[in-house]
């Protein structure tokens, strides 16, 4: 509140504020009443006044109009030919934190610093001010530069001693994490999101706790002060915006999900990829601050090097500059920033480019002025040239949206900052010189500076017969001096020539070696009109879902009815294998199965089953595709992290897996810690937004892990635990804590007096997840290898009264099959991986069969993007090793994993009433010589051989046309390289992969 008050005071007192300081020499009191006349005034977006007068008085705009009376005390400045705009707002300017802020009341996590006010650190240097002033920025929205909860942004004037217009604009958040080399939680995107969520709960709790403590100090223990939580609570109460920084459209969706969950005022730092999920992103109408930083031109000259670029990188190069227009078209408010631009002047070239491509100039002006002013609470003070507004003006020698025109001066709070000379002394061009009764030609041209060096003028002096290069040259304001060899022109030796420029006339003297003087004059020769500029054009490319390759440009086929006619049906259900059988599917559900079903002609999509085999869609109980982040290994228990937060349906692995008949996958957290994160069971609905992948009926689950990975045996680490003994204690300890948490909660909830006077128990997402396990509402999927650790976990589960849903990998499960069966757990195993680390030396490929024959529900899993494309063949190995029947073998990848994930009510077998998730094979599904021809999910055709071929041809054509376009475009503007879309690791397994792999380019 005090901060707000101060900023208000500053605003009211205006220039007087400076007088708080003692005067060091004499008082300086300039007049500060100005009349700016004859300018072309763009007073607000969409409006302008020709030859208007603006009266400024003591930092404010007093009046504006075409025929207004100039006050007698005003000094007049003639702006003939100039354009005047309201001062622009740079909407995103990151400021380095300089002060050390280790205080006792800070949050336990160093990345949470909501109390921090960036204003405290904003001391702009001349270089920064110069670069922003040159673009017309008089104000900036400054933001803190590091942390997850980074602190509060502010709106300031861009002056040497900045004045704050709003000291706390918004809370700024970033998905920041340290990666595996980090020292502090979170290591991963998973953890960063979980920490955000928990912190919002904590802030709410902290507010309540404070209140209880203040009201009933005698009843409560004092709680530890936490400035971050206090500040968050305050921002929320005040309905302050929460700004999330995003890197691509997935981050936008993730941010919006949290903003929505906690009902916050949504702001985003945009990323340029929003067009890819425009519908989903614009739904909540977030305010987007959009850097005008666009992708660099891909280097495709060498066709081999062009292969380094993924198609959507090429496509993004074409589409990125249309993003703002597309956002605008949906009614989203966008503000601009130079954030990310290495060379700030490119801002205006990029701006011109997006205007060329269809953004209306009025919209562009609004994004620089009124929109940010209004969003940041200064709609009555900034962004327009209007009486009562702050006297912030941009004076341009032409139209601002033409990058050739120059910002010549800025007015900030009624004080002028000169940026560039009002008129340029332009020597460039051809001059007709009369000298010594002869006529010569002088030709000045501009030499482009290489490697950041400034431009240079060079010149040639010529008569009809000779021409000589100018040797030395010097320019100061309107004066030019140069030297050249005078001999060919009849002078003595090297001559020096001086001249003075007055618009289109040059005059001066020539001095030759003998000391003789000659007068000379020159007039500018008329030049040909420059060629009209080639305008940038908007992209004409259709969007694909997802971008990159094999995306859908139209919705996938979903016939109302499908008839599978005369096929061999592997039901994986009680009916076994049915020969020459029919299936009727309606609205995505299996309606009927019978030897002969007839439908009216043309009423159903017919699949001719002759020679074809139909199986249920395959299910992988252990998979890491479509996950942008896999392991949160910073702590040994991270039950609070959720795979559903980081789903990335654009992962090409999904399409490749569909091509192998996979329809459902259990996307698990990695195995870096004993209690990992919450899983996400998905259907492989290719092209859909992340949330639409989720198998909504599937019960929630969580990943546990035991053995070498969690005790960090195969890499450096000193986190507890380092032994299997410690692993047991960590898990036991977690459950004991959860039980105690529950008791406290129940106690509080049933006692009205406690509720009235006591600080409520803190809502803890980690404990909530653990409790759900104990209550049987969350399935445990435990990565495990050795029999000892499997027995250990069974014992703990028995003791705490819950059942492990599956042991994952469970490579020594064959040694204690009866224990697993008696406990009631499922076993989801690799088929034949072994000997890569010590704990898998006793792994045998007969594991699946031996467990199955002893009554364990067994599935085989992939844990790899590659194996997941041929799960049918993994199942076949159970026939080879241990002689399982074909029918039972197929169940290892159909009904068994469905039962393990408790989704067998809907999928896993072909039975009436179940989801129409099925695969059409061109032969027996367990043979190496068989191929998947079609894959259907919910009666929708997500993959077929023909479809893939057609998409491939389409994408290859797109690729070559994009490369053609790039080759035909010359671009001087630099930019960043866009992130390839889901170019991930090659099949990994054993889940010990790290994050960030997504950001690798093509694998070596």
């Amino acid at each position, binding site marked *: 509140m005090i901060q707000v008050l101060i900023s208000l005071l500053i605003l009211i007192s205006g220039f007087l504020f400076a007088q708080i300081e003692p005067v060091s020499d004499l008082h300086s009191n300039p007049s500060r009443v100005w009349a700016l006349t004859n300018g072309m005034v763009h007073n607000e977006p969409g409006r302008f006044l020709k030859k208007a007068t603006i009266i400024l008085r003591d930092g404010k705009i007093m009046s504006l109009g075409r025929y207004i009376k100039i006050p007698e005390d005003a000094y007049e400045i003639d702006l003939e030919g100039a354009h005047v705009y309201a001062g622009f707002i740079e909407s995103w300017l990151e400021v380095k934190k300089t002060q050390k802020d280790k205080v006792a009341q800070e949050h336990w996590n160093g990345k949470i610093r909501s109390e921090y006010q960036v204003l405290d650190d904003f001391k702009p240097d001349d270089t920064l001010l110069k670069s922003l002033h040159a673009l017309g920025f008089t104000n900036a929205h400054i933001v803190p530069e590091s942390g997850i909860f980074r602190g509060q942004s502010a709106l300031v004037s861009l002056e040497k001693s900045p004045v704050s217009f709003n000291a706390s604009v918004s809370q700024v958040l970033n998905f920041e994490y340290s990666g595996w080399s980090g020292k502090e939680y979170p290591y991963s995107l998973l953890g960063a999101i979980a920490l955000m969520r928990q912190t919002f709960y904590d802030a709410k709790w902290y507010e309540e706790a404070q209140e209880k403590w203040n009201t009933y100090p005698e009843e409560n223990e004092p709680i530890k002060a936490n400035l971050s939580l206090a500040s968050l609570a305050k921002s929320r109460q005040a309905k302050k915006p929460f700004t999330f920084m995003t890197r691509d459209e997935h981050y936008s969706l993730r941010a919006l999900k949290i903003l929505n969950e906690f009902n916050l005022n949504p702001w985003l730092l945009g990323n340029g990829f929003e067009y890819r999920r425009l519908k989903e992103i614009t739904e909540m109408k977030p305010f987007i601050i959009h850097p005008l930083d666009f992708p660099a031109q891909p280097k495709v000259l060498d066709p081999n090097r062009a292969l380094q670029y*993924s198609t959507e990188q090429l496509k993004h190069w074409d589409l990125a500059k249309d993003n703002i227009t597309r956002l605008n078209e949906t009614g989203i408010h966008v503000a601009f920033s130079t954030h990310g631009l290495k060379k700030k002047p490119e801002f205006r070239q990029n701006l011109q480019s997006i205007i060329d491509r269809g953004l209306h100039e009025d919209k562009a002006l609004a994004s620089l002025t009124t929109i940010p002013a209004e969003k940041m609470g200064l709609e009555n003070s900034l962004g327009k040239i209007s009486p009562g507004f702050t006297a912030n003006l941009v004076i341009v020698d032409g139209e601002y949206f033409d990058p050739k025109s120059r910002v010549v001066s800025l007015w900030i709070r009624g004080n002028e900052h000169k940026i560039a000379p009002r008129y340029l002394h332009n020597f460039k061009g051809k001059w007709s010189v009369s000298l010594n009764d002869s006529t010569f030609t002088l030709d000045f041209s501009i030499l482009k500076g290489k490697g950041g060096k400034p431009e240079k003028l060079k010149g040639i002096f010529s008569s009809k017969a000779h021409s000589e290069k100018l040797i030395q040259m010097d320019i100061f304001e309107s004066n030019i001096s140069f030297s050249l060899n005078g001999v060919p022109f009849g002078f003595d030796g090297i001559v020096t020539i001086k001249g003075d420029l007055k618009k289109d006339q040059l005059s001066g003297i020539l001095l030759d070696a003998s000391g003789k003087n000659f007068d000379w004059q020159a007039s500018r020769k008329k030049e040909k009109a420059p060629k009209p500029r080639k305008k940038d054009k908007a992209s004409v490319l259709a969007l694909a879902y997802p971008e990159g390759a094999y995306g859908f440009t139209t919705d996938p086929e979903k016939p109302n009815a499908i008839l599978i006619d005369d096929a061999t049906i592997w039901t994986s259900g009680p009916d076994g294998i049915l020969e020459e059988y029919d299936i009727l599917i309606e609205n995505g559900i299996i309606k009927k199965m019978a030897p002969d079903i007839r439908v009216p002609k043309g009423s159903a999509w017919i699949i001719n089953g002759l020679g074809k085999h139909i199986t249920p869609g395959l299910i992988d109980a252990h998979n890491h595709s479509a996950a942008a982040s896999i392991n949160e290994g910073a702590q040994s228990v991270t039950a609070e992290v959720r795979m559903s937060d980081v789903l990335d349906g654009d992962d090409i692995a999904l399409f490749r897996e569909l091509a192998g008949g996979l329809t459902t996958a259990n996307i698990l957290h990695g195995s870096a810690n004993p209690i990992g994160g919450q899983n996400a069971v998905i259907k492989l609905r290719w092209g859909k937004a992340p949330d639409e992948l989720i198998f909504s009926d599937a019960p929630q689950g969580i990943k546990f892990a035991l053995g070498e990975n969690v005790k960090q045996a195969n890499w450096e680490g000193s986190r507890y635990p380092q032994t299997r003994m410690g692993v047991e204690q960590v898990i036991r300890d977690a459950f004991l804590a959860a039980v105690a948490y529950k008791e406290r909660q129940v106690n509080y909830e049933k006692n009205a007096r406690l509720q009235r006077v006591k600080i409520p128990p803190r809502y803890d997402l980690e404990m909530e997840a653990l409790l759900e396990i104990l209550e049987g509402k969350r399935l445990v999927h435990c990565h495990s290898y050795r029999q000892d650790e499997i027995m250990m976990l069974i014992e703990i589960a028995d003791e705490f009264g819950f059942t492990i849903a599956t042991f994952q990998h469970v490579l020594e499960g064959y040694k204690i099959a009866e224990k697993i069966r008696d406990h009631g757990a499922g076993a989801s195993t690799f088929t034949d991986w072994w000997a890569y680390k010590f704990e898998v030396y006793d792994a045998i490929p007969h594991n699946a069969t031996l467990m199955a024959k002893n009554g364990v529900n067994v599935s085989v899993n992939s844990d790899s993007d590659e194996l997941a494309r041929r799960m049918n063949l993994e199942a076949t190995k159970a026939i080879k090793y241990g002689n399982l029947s074909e029918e039972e073998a197929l169940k290892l990848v159909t009904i068994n994993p469905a039962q393990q994930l408790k989704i067998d009510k809907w999928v896993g077998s072909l039975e009436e009433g179940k989801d129409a998730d099925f695969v059409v094979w061109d032969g027996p599904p367990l043979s190496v010589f068989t191929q998947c021809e079609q894959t259907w999910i919910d009666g929708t055709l997500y993959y077929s051989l023909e479809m893939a071929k057609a998409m491939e041809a389409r994408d290859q054509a797109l690729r070559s046309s994009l490369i053609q376009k790039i080759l035909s475009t010359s671009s001087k503007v630099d930019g960043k390289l866009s992130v390839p879309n889901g170019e991930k690791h090659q099949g990994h397994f054993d889940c010990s992969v790290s994050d960030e792999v997504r950001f690798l380019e093509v694998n070596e």
Partner: protein
Amino acid sequence: MKRLLQILLLTTIIFANDQIPGSIQKHPILLKGGILHTISGDVLRGYDLLFANGKIIRIDEEIIPSPETEVIDIYNTHVTPGFIVPVSQLGLVEIGQVKQSRDFAEIGKFNPNVRANVSYNPDSEIIPVTRSNGILLANVAPSSGRISGQSSLMMLDGWTWKDATMLHPTALHINWPNMRIRTGKKVKEKEKVQKEKIQKEIQALDDWVRNVKAYEQRISVHLLKSDEKQIPDIRLASMIPFINGEKPIFIRANEIRQIKSAIRWGNKHHLDIVIVGGRDAWRASELLVKFDVPVILQNVLSTPMRRFEPIHLPYEMPKILSDAGVQFCIAPKTGYPHNGNIRNLPYEAAMAVRHGLPKEEGLRAITLSAAEILGVADKIGSLEPGKDATFFLSNRNPLEITSSVSKAFIQGREIDLGDRQKSLYEKYKEKYRQLGKLEQ
């Protein structure tokens, strides 16, 4: 009691921890009436195969056995030449994550002199598991640095590494420099600097070639005074047969620019090179054919390198190379964590067959083609009289996962097909029998 005895008997055979190497073939053996995948010729159904003293003697429709000949009736059984792994670390590492068991990567960048076979552990548990699936020969190779060392072709049977060595050296192994130009935020090096670094790496290899040639020239002259004599250089000396073209150089190169650059390099120095890896080989097929460079193709069972490539591209690669006339064979992936699963080599070939390669060509890609590239096609890789009796018997086409190997011979020695995994299987089957829970 009787049962227990049976088990004891079984365990004494199977629990001999390491399987006992086969003894020398003492009498001729006639396999009668099998399905012979000759590879060099047609599939012969119902043919007889006679082998003696470790060599194939005759293949015919009807062979009359001599009295001392052992006759094995193999009606409907497939006979296939032993599968050959053209590159692997078999025997050089037991457990990838256990440093103590790793012997495939010497320290330093240039190790042309190190020899794989001397650190091949014939008692590795991985070996019997691998040969249980019909893989009877493996070229084992060092893999670190720029020049990794020399590989050796091992028979997967023998008391010592010397017994097991079939040929050494088979090739010199080089890892071609990465030629990607890295771009993006995190890259600090300028493009020019990156290009210079790549050039330097290749230049270093050029220098090795020159130094070896100079070294060879000096030592080939015998008339020098003793103080002018060349002092031995173990690295340079070891490279002579590879630089003068007697033996091939296997160059690991996957990305197109690597492959092209490696071919140019080999051509410039007149070397006999083979591309190992070859994920982009199909993009360079014309060049490979033109300069007669074979490819040891890895990564058939893998995902495409690039998002925009055909989703089944790695599966289709053998067919594409075959159609283009490129000489190639199929290899499993090497290194962590693949060493234990070399046994899945036939399924790489099977996937290639599923995607267009004719069945017998699929078999050839893991038998005779490998033998040709390794320079041992005169001894192994097909069923032909005069060649080693190195083959195995299976109940189905050996590319099918469901097929199982019933007998195997290496140079006529019958191989013990037991392995660590089968032993553990038997052991725990017994546990469930004791618990009365498993009928078997």
